[in-house]
């Protein structure tokens, strides 16, 4: 089953055309990584897919339901507010710089959305949060505040916050770019565990080794279009000179 489908997504900022027609889909249980140089449009795909930005043209579907549909001329028309609210529940997003709520404890960061948005009881939300914290190795941190945690711990909390809403798909926007190598590995470990549990994920990353190990499929994007798409094996044994050069620059042998 297709969890996410993007057809011919186009997005410009002013005169700058950042996405020039991106089409991709993600099946249930699949891990898709998006790699590419800075400014290639990777994050814009994620921002449009999560509706933080609106695309100009193209279709966006979750579980075969249109969140945005292109008209005859191509312009995307988004669904009604109520529909989008429901559709949004299908996915979660983990940000590069965490974006935790600094005035909330770790526990409250995780329980707030399930209580407010899903309407579950406080008790149930706290049980759910605690079991996520246990799983992510943060069992003793539920009363801590974000500033008291390392970057790696903060990122794991933000993963727990996203998982607490039980999304069908989790987006990661360069989840380790703000972390040093040691903290990076603890976050990557968590994402790997999620992959083993067959969590559907779309990951924008610069961690080539990680992408190689984890991904069912990898997309290489540059200049706003998908240059190469393939299995992890295909990508890392590519004949494409540009992709070879790119992977090489990131220290991957």
């Amino acid at each position: 089953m297709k969890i996410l489908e993007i057809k011919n997504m186009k997005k410009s900022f002013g005169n700058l055309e950042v996405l020039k027609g991106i089409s991709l889909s993600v099946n249930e249980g699949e891990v898709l990584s998006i790699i590419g140089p800075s400014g290639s449009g990777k994050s814009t795909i994620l921002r449009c897919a999560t509706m933080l930005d609106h695309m100009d043209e193209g279709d966006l579907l979750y579980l075969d339901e249109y969140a945005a549909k292109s008209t005859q001329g191509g312009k995307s028309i988004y669904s009604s507010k109520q529909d989008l609210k429901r559709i949004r529940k299908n996915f979660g997003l983990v940000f590069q710089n965490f974006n935790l709520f600094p005035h909330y404890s770790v526990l409250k960061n995780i329980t707030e959305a399930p209580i407010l948005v899903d309407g579950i009881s406080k008790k149930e939300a706290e049980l759910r949060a605690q079991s996520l914290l246990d799983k992510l190795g943060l069992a003793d941190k539920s009363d801590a505040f974000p500033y008291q945690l390392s970057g790696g711990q903060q990122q794991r909390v933000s993963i727990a916050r996203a998982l607490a809403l039980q999304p069908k798909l989790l987006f990661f926007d360069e989840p380790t770019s703000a972390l040093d190598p040691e903290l990076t590995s603890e976050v990557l470990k968590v994402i790997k565990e999620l992959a083993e549990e067959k969590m559907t994920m779309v990951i924008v990353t610069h961690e080539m080794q990680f992408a190689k190990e984890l991904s069912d499929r990898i997309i290489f994007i540059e200049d706003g279009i998908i240059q190469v798409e393939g299995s992890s094996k295909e990508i890392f044994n590519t004949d494409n000179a540009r992709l070879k050069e790119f992977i090489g620059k990131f220290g991957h042998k």
Partner: protein
Amino acid sequence: MSIYFILTQLGQGFLTTILIFILTLLFSLPLGLVVSFGRMSKIFLIRTISKFYISIMRGTPLMLQLIVVFFAPYYVFGLQMGSSFRFTAVIVAFVLNYAAYFAEIYRGGIESMPVGQYEACKVLGFSKAQTFIRIILPQVFKRILPPLTNETITLVKDTSLAFVLSVVEMFTTAKQIAASETTMLPLMIAGVFYYVFNLIVALGLERIENSLNYYR
């Protein structure tokens, strides 16, 4: 002429001072938030009107604003207001003036919030109201507390301007006694009153600030 006499006289004026202070805060703090929304509105007309309002309130003397508010009902609507309107006019003028200053303080705080906080809320499915009330406003409040303290202390001293409309607050009383008894003493004592009042206000706000130090 005894200190006791001066104190009891000033004490009565002091109650009026406190009343002006409390009522002004009570109304101008929420009104300021509304004005700051207007100032940040996407709608050009609302934004321009709010900007103009703030500009007038900050650009003209509060003393003049007091007089304008007091005489406006007569000159604009031809209404004869009783003498009890004096106090109301003082409150209205103070509220209008302070709301403008508070609006700019709120705006500074709200605009300083990282966009990531809004985006996290959006992805988690919070409504706009939930986002603002639960996530944004508490953090803004912490950020703007120092300038808010400043403005509040200024308000304590500004209450003395109520004399313009013959509302007898503490400073008016002090001046009257000073004139009739030809002594500086009542004015000095009034100064002590203001200082102690402000000290209490500042300490109170500092306590609130400290109580918000549980996060960064």
